[in-house]
């Protein structure tokens, strides 16, 4: 079991998934910042977060002054780059939490994913979108997937429920990893 930290974009999207409860089977605890919770308004997201909080899976992160300073430095380094969208405070805080704790960052924020691709400090953070979470459900046998077709059906189910699409390149890479795992 691992530690995770979930940002607003991830929670909002994942909460729409019919099999959303499976997330709790992957993580010992998922940290959340109170500013992330403040972004949740849809009944599905509020209900999902409330259930996870009640079960003790979702836990409010004790934010510190040192982390606030780290956030300010990160913000000044990257937040004004026009090629990196959506670098707003709540999701940047989650990146800082993931860096500080070693937790897997659960995000659907494209800007955050891009920072992790090149930032000399924050590139050590492991980030998963829903696609990688679905992959992990396969590897840990939490979802019954016996073929690549089953995996693609699982992804399609998520995409339909969350009104989400994954880039062709990333989906092809994930399918290849699952194909190798199934053939092991």
């Amino acid at each position, binding site marked *: 079991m691992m530690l995770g930290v979930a940002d607003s974009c991830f929670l909002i999207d994942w909460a729409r998934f019919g099999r959303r409860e499976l997330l709790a089977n992957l993580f010992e605890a998922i940290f959340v910042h109170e500013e992330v919770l403040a972004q949740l308004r849809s009944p599905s997201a509020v209900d999902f977060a409330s259930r996870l909080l009640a079960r003790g899976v979702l836990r409010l992160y004790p934010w510190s002054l040192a982390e606030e300073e780290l956030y300010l430095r990160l913000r000044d380094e990257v937040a004004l*780059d026009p090629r990196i969208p959506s670098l707003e405070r709540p999701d940047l805080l989650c990146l800082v939490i993931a860096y500080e704790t070693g937790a897997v960052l659960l995000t659907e924020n494209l800007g955050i994913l891009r920072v992790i691709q090149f930032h000399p400090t924050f590139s050590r953070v492991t980030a998963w979108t829903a696609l990688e979470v679905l992959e992990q459900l396969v590897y840990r046998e939490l979802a019954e997937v016996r073929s690549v077709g089953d995996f693609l059906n699982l992804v399609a189910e998520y995409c339909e429920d969350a009104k989400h699409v994954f880039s062709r390149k990333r989906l092809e890479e994930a399918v290849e990893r699952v194909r190798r795992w199934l053939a092991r």
Partner: protein
Amino acid sequence: MVGKVRPPPELVREWEREDEEFRELRRRSADWKFIEEQEPRVRLALIAYIETGDRYLAARLAGLTLGEFDELRVKAGVVCAT
């Protein structure tokens, strides 16, 4: 003063290709009739989202939280892409 940390040019070119792919997916998925029927501020926010993929920017333009804007995104049929 903290220096800017800049992405390498090859990564920026990959992002530009990705942005174009995602923009096209958002445009094609959108219910344009629904969008045209919205009040100007909401319409502007939805169009900004379709063009940029920036949920926070769109939510701010609409005067909504991220979660509230996402409800609107789904009603407008616009996919989120990563």
